[in-house]
């Protein structure tokens, strides 16, 4: 079993729909939980990160963490064609270098928002 599991999709939704993306994890040492967005032929860009269980909202995006179930989600409201990208969950734990962290990524879910 991989440390981070993410359904690769693809996921196709109509414009304006609510999108739900999910990841599960097995490593209890993970402390921070992130979502990255990656457009084709580009590097990942950080969308949101959370530390504790609960919800964090930023505009149309809501990140949800449930540490007891080892489950994280990203919700996108009023989805737009510009949201079409691959969404990667990532989880971090401290690494041996002072003040540095190590990230483990999911496979990514490819999302298409159809106009």
């Amino acid at each position, binding site marked *: 079993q991989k440390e981070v599991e993410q359904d690769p999709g693809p996921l196709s939704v109509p414009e304006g729909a609510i999108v739900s993306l999910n990841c599960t994890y097995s490593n209890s040492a993970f402390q921070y939980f992130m979502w990255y967005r990656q457009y084709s032929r580009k590097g990942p860009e950080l969308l949101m990160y959370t530390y504790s269980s609960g919800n964090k909202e930023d505009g149309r995006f809501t990140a949800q963490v449930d540490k007891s179930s080892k489950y994280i989600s990203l919700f996108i409201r009023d989805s737009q064609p510009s949201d079409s990208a691959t969404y*990667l969950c990532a989880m971090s734990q401290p690494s041996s270098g002072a003040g540095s962290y190590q990230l483990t990524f999911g496979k990514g879910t490819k999302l298409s928002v159809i106009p």
Partner: protein
Amino acid sequence: EAEVAQSPRYKITEKSQAVAFWCDPISGHATLYWYRQILGQGPELLVQFQDESVVDDSQLPKDRFSAERLKGVDSTLKIQPAELGDSAMYLCASSPRRSEGLHFGNGTRLTVT
């Protein structure tokens, strides 16, 4: 906004040849990472530097891959000899000290023929 610079953007090489990638992190970022991303997969860590020191290279195939960050600023990742299975996107990322958020460059797309 400051960016992580990587070059080249694309590289085609024949198997058994040597290839090198360069990364210039955001100024002041102490931690530098090299990740490999195979099409349809998430990035996988190859090597992590804290300043000029290697923090983690446990997933780096050391028989053919090497990485250095001599002055704790820019970094080079080398593959010699390249194999067909090395075809992937090589991503560099950096982060400030005590920050869990990584900033990625746009990667080098390597094709080995």
